[in-house]
């Protein structure tokens, strides 16, 4: 595909603000009347809280408010499994658990007050390793585990996990394929290894910060350092039992996330404080606090066993992964699922038994850090792959090339893989690294490959608007954590689709009240998912522009060209119409279109007006009431006929078989006719008592079919209205309803 903006080097739209210090990060916000918040975090990894006394702290000068578990709903909330509470109540579960939040006129006053809060802990044995936490006699970290709930789609799976009855198990995922034992039985060589990896932090340069501002209606606006503004809204709503209409989340410039900002943090705490004190509240984490409470990479223990044939074919693999999820489950179910598919590697393995468990410990909540679980699992799988090659005395590159997936191969879950370029990538990488030749003293060359799922999560949406001056506004829910997706790539897509210079595009992003929904800037998905949404929105705008321009330039849409924010007919760029002019003229062309479609109504109105004017002049001939009734009746009748014809046309287009339509319409006519003939107005007074429905049905059917058979003399039995009904049935039936409809459609329809 030929492109003029996408794929070129452009300056991102937010760069000028960022190089001048004007870009506003959360910590830079200052609102009138703002108070400053500080957290009291647990200093124990696992301890019972025996006493909590805030009286001295509350008296400290400059303290505005202190909130603890007593001030907020005690309901559990969380990313997927609801196992978090806003403030520790009876127990702290990791070094960093939130016990209280203090708001002060200054950050210093708030910090002094935090230091004055009296706490009485009873330390409990801390479970700092998954092996210890899984021991049957280990202490249960979450006493309420059995009553925990999840988001609805995971409820069934969670019950299965609970049913395993394993102490401190938070989640478990599996992939099973083929017959793993049979695979091992056929193997010439089996290699079983154990790997473990440690915790790691994402450490974006910007520490997390939150500002929450209440408004008098009980709504709260939250500015926060997040990759997932809509997720924050949803979790805050659950934690505080607020409707989403009461929460607005804005992610301004975000100073890097790398996954550490895609979980719920202190947003609900700050929102609760803001609503309580009725003033804006700001919390900026110190680096140490940020480290203690961030969501590091899961420590992992990985047992991996593979069976191979002498020729290098991978036959079977069994993997057991245990991930340390820390004090809460967070996005652990996602990590468990990812690690399962990652551990199969980009290899064709017919027989698989993979399981990945997340386990509670007294550590920070481990969660998403850049490609969650990929470094841990790929380290284990690729080290194992090298060792397999070594065990078979094969070249590691040749061993990989023998087993890697190719286009249209099946993945571990039998997904058909598309756009697979791994073979080419590996071959080229090996060539460039002079694979096979010695790299020289003090140097080594290694080879590894891996895969990653993208386009994950739910959808993205976008709004593209042309301003009156022809500039373009892009509204996207996607957060901008620095990758340049929102202020670079998405804007480029708009520029490409609408052919406007990038400098004439503005972006508003990540505001839950102003921008359309987005799953979040996670898993490298923004350019793919939000990008497609933006492209579709821009394409829709483009099509509207073209249609309007076609009318204005009296040309076919196919002959129009978009360029530099203008539309022109191929070959005559000098007569280009700017988008702004098209948009400005849009309303009038809409009026014309409406008039064209509804001219009959206007014609009737004119007739009615003439008749009424006539009444004003010759009022003595007819009474006002009569004129009014006549005009109204003419109007209703004409409108009905027009609508009826339209309905008829729709019947013709409906795709119902003509024969069925014909028979159906005859039956319909007979039933309607018989009903009309049962009306008192249709029968002369003397015949009322002797007229029954079977007579009515017979007469109506006979009339519709134009047979001429009667059960009662038409002249004496029916009133003029009844006779008119019979006449109408004969006319409609005789002419044939299809013929009638078609002719009417031809006569009247084409004019409409």
């Amino acid at each position, binding site marked *: 595909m030929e492109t003029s903006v996408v794929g070129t*080097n452009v300056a991102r739209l*937010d760069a*000028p603000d*960022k*190089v001048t210090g004007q870009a506003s990060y959360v910590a830079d916000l200052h609102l009138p009347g703002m108070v400053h918040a500080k957290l009291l975090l647990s200093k124990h990894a696992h301890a019972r809280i025996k006493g909590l006394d805030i009286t001295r702290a509350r008296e400290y000068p400059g303290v505005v408010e202190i909130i603890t578990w007593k001030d907020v709903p005690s309901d559990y909330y969380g990313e997927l499994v609801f196992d978090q509470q806003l403030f520790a109540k009876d127990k702290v579960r990791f070094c960093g658990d939130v016990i209280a939040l203090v708001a002060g006129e200054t950050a210093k006053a708030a910090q002094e007050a935090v230091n004055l809060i009296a706490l009485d802990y009873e330390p409990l044995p801390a479970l700092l390793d998954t092996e210890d936490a899984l021991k049957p006699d280990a202490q249960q970290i979450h006493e309420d585990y059995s009553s925990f709930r999840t988001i609805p789609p995971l409820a069934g799976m969670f019950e299965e996990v609970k049913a395993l009855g394993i102490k401190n198990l938070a989640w478990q995922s599996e992939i099973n394929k083929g017959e793993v034992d049979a695979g091992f039985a056929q193997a010439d060589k089996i290699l079983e290894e154990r790997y473990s990896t440690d915790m790691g932090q994402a450490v*974006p*340069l910007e*520490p997390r910060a939150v500002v929450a501002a209440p408004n008098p209606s009980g709504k709260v606006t939250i500015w926060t350092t997040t990759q997932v503004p809509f997720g924050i809204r949803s979790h805050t709503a659950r934690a505080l039992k607020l409707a989403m209409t009461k929460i607005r989340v804005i992610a301004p410039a975000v*100073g890097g996330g790398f996954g550490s900002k895609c979980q719920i943090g202190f947003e609900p705490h700050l929102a609760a404080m803001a609503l309580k004190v009725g003033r804006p509240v700001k919390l900026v984490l110190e680096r140490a606090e940020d480290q203690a409470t961030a969501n590091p990479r899961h420590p992992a223990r990985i047992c991996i066993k593979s069976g191979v044939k002498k020729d290098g074919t991978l036959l079977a693999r069994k993997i057991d992964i245990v991930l340390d999820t820390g004090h809460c489950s967070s996005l652990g179910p996602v990590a468990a699922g990812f690690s399962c598919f990652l551990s199969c590697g980009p290899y064709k393995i017919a027989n698989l038994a993979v399981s990945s468990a997340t386990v509670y410990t007294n550590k920070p909540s481990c969660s998403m850090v850049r490609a969650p679980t990929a470094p841990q699992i790929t380290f284990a799988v690729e080290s194992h792959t090298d060792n397999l090659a070594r065990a078979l005395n094969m070249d590691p590159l040749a061993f990989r090339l023998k087993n890697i997936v190719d286009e249209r191969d099946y993945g571990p879950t039998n997904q058909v893989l598309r756009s697979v370029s791994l073979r080419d990538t590996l071959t080229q990488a090996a060539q460039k690294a002079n694979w096979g030749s010695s790299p020289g003293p003090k140097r080594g060359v290694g080879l590894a490959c891996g895969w990653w799922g993208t386009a994950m999560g739910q959808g993205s949406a976008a709004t593209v608007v042309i301003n009156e001056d022809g500039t373009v506004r892009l509204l996207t829910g996607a957060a901008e954590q*620095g990758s340049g997706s929102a202020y670079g790539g998405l804007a480029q897509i708009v520029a490409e689709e609408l052919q406007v210079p990038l400098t004439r595009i503005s972006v508003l992003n990540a505001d839950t009240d102003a921008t359309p929904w987005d799953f979040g800037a996670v898993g490298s998905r923004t350019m793919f998912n939000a990008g497609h949404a933006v492209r579709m929105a821009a394409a829709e705008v483009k099509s509207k522009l073209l249609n309007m321009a076609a009318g204005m330039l009296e040309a076919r849409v196919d002959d129009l060209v978009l360029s530099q924010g203008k539309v022109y007919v191929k070959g005559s760029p000098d007569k280009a119409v700017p988008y702004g002019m098209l948009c400005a003229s849009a309303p009038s062309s809409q009026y014309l279109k409406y008039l064209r479609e509804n001219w009959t109504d206007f014609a009737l109105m004119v007739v009615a007006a003439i008749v009424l004017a006539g009444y004003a002049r010759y009022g003595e001939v007819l009474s006002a009431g009569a004129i009014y009734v006549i005009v109204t009746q003419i109007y209703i009748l004409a409108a009905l006929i027009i609508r009826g014809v339209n309905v008829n046309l729709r019947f013709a287009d409906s795709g119902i078989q003509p024969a069925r339509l014909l028979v159906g319409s005859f039956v319909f006519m007979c039933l309607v006719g018989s009903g009309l003939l049962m009306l008192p107005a249709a029968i002369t007074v003397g015949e009322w008592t002797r007229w029954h429905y079977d007579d009515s049905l017979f007469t109506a059917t006979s009339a519709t079919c134009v047979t001429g058979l009667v059960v009662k003399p038409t002249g004496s039995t029916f009133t003029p209205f009844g006779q008119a009904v019979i006449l109408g049935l004969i006319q409609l039936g005789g002419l044939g309803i299809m013929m009638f409809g078609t002719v009417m459609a031809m006569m009247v329809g084409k004019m409409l």
Partner: protein
Amino acid sequence: MGIGLTLRINGKSYRTEVEPLTTLLEVLRDDLGLTGTKEGCGEGDCGACTVLVDGQAVNACLFPALEARGKEVVTIEGLARDGRLHPLQQAFVEKGAVQCGFCIPGMIMSAKALLDGNPSPSDDEIKLAIAGNLCRCTGYIKIIEAIRSVARSAC
């Protein structure tokens, strides 16, 4: 009780009150609203708070505000003139050296301190000058390219 202090920042005078240990960063961000200078760690590791004091790049988070008395302080807000970006700022924009942007004010101030004293530095000198500035988006190559492009055009 605060100590009265007059500071010269970006060519303007500001009057404020500080405690003996108030840092220059606290004065800039909290008292004067000059939030272009960022705080990444608060302990002199990351360089996000780099400003110039008498032409010297310093970590404002460690620099006592009182020490700046009588000296010329330049922050990121002081570089653009009349809506025109400073050549370093322009280069950072054009070379794609900006990602999340949090390290950029400090990075540009370190680069300015370098170029003011040494208009045509070698790559090693550039690397040394920004050694105290961390970029977590790992954009060093483009940052160095941007600084180099200004250095050459200055030759």
